[in-house]
């Protein structure tokens, strides 16, 4: 028998970390699905516009129809982002982003049809970037485990990071902030929200 290096198994990891609640994983998968679909459709837009400019006339109609579909999909992303936040208990920042995109999508459609290209291209690039960021964030591995915020035990927000939700290796927790809910608009369903700031060895602060 040769010597074996013991590689931690999945069981080891989950054993040391309590599993993420079902609501979190379910809502995250919903967000992954709709944000993924939206990102693919969004990335398709410059491609289709480029094909039209390169010569393929029918691509313009496809670009327009795709835009119409996106108008609907953007609202599904809003719903999914809200669900992932509550009850999913994942961060809430995708919500305002998704809402902004959903409101801007018809504007973008109008600008396209009216051929206001300066606005259309600027807004188009921004919408694509925003949609891709949300999708990549949702799809990054371990998203649920890394972002899930446990319900706090007391109204005072006495905080101890739940076991298994520790900082990335090599990072030291420096401080824990507890902020009153009023300071965070749109988060009224919870009395407190904890953000931990981790300092990386190179000194950069990170909000997790």
């Amino acid at each position, binding site marked *: 028998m040769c010597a074996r290096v013991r590689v931690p198994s999945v069981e080891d990891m989950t054993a040391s970390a309590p599993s993420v609640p079902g609501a979190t994983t379910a809502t995250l998968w919903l967000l992954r699905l709709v944000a993924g679909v939206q990102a693919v459709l969004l990335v398709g837009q410059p491609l289709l516009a480029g*094909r*039209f400019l*390169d*010569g393929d*006339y*029918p691509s313009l*109609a496809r670009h327009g129809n795709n835009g119409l579909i996106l108008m609907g999909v953007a609202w599904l992303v809003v719903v999914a982002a809200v669900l992932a936040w509550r009850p999913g208990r994942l961060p809430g920042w995708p919500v305002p982003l998704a809402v902004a995109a959903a409101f801007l999508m018809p504007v973008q459609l109008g600008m396209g049809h*009216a*051929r206001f290209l300066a606005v259309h291209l600027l807004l188009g690039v921004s919408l694509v970037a925003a949609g891709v960021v949300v999708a990549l964030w949702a799809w990054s591995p371990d998203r649920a485990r890394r972002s899930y915020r446990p319900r706090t035990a007391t109204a005072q927000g006495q905080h101890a990071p739940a076991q298994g939700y520790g900082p990335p290796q090599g990072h030291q927790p420096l401080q824990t902030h507890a902020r009153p809910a009023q300071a965070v608009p749109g988060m009224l369903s919870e009395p407190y929200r904890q953000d931990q700031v981790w300092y990386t060895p190179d000194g950069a602060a990170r909000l997790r």
Partner: protein
Amino acid sequence: MMSPTRRTFLGLSGAAAVTAVLAAVGSDWFTGNGTGSHGALLPSRVPLPEPFTTALPIPREITPTDGVVDLVARRSAVEVLPGRTTEILGYDGTFPGPTIRARAGEPLRVRLRNELDLDTVLHLHGGVTPPEHDGYPTDVVVPGTVRDYDYPLGQRAAPLWYHDHAMDFTGPNVYAGLAGMALLTDDEEEALGLPSGERDIPLVICDRSFDADGAFAYPLIDPSRGRPGVELRYHGGLLGDCVLVNGAPWPVLEVDAARYRFRLLNASNARRYELALDQGATFTQVGTDLGLLEKPWVRSTLPLAGAERADVVVDFSDLPVGTEVTMTNRLDGGGPGQVMRFRVVRTASDDSRVPDRLSTIERLDPGAVAVTRDLHFALGPTGGAHHGGGMWNVNGITFHDGDVFTSRLGTLERWRLTTDVHHPIHAHLVGFQVEGPDGTPAWKDTVDLRPGDAREVLVPIEGYRGQYVLHCHNLEHEDMMMMVHFSVA
């Protein structure tokens, strides 16, 4: 700092996305529709012939008698595809029409009899013509009448062409066959010793698609012509899948091992070509749309957008008998990627030459420009056109909106042309001075603009006073309003 897992994840997802896009859609996603042209392909509904099996037809040549040439526009049934008949609208019932050979500086009268059941208009493309004879789109020759078009031809020797220019229906009319070449010569050109006679051949290149019954397929939105326009899919231009040269599909020409002069014309509605020869043969371009270059220009490929001409010499003299030289279109593959073939069948004597100096072109002084005009060719807002889509336009206006500008006779202008998609731009009456080979000046009447392109041309306002049109020569764009007026005062 990025953790290794995240970096791997981002890398993998990026690679996966690119692979998925590549796999799902094929490589023509990165070259528009893979044709190098704006529009949409209409596939033929009959089997197309094997390329290089039919002989290249040479259109009949006509020279003026007492300054007059007679043309009859009529319907006729011709064999384009082997074993099938195709109904055409043709000058003298042929497609292309007869090649008119005339002399620059000698007035020419073309007497057109319209034996069609449709209105037609005759335009001499590249001709410096008074407005009443220029083929204004609504100045129609109604069925059963005769009309004299008088062309003073006070201009350089040049490979011109003539075609229908009827309002809203130029696309279908030219597609049906109403086009032919008009080659102007003069003493200067004749003295050069370029290949002549049987070795001076017009090559009218166009693409067509065929219906199930062998007819030319053209997707008119209303075949009864109650209203103009094509089906929305082809609003950007109609691309056919069969390349015809002088009306024959992918023909073959038997040539002597000698120099030949070819007058290339792209008579397609929307297709652009980048012509190339194999077996090491090259094009020696001696002239453009509006006549000779200053010196020969050896080119391995030759781009040609709708209505553009190139006057070239191809030298087969070094090729062994039996060699087959194929002319291809590098912008597309399959059928539209093939054009025609030359088969060297015999050795022969050849006293032609291509002199190092062909002509002298007076270089216009940009400092003398009186007016600079910006002309933008683009698709208008959704809802402007009859089918609810956008309307092609120039500076946001169309044919019905009056003059886009008024120029003064005898002045020099600079036009800055810009585009959204491919548009070959053509103005009546005037010529464009552009940069030719090695910075020499060259004369054009049609300039090919690519997507998002910008070109400056110098435009001497010479000829006649009156109202003319300026338009895109993608005929679907032209019919769907990318044509505006300008006046010379």
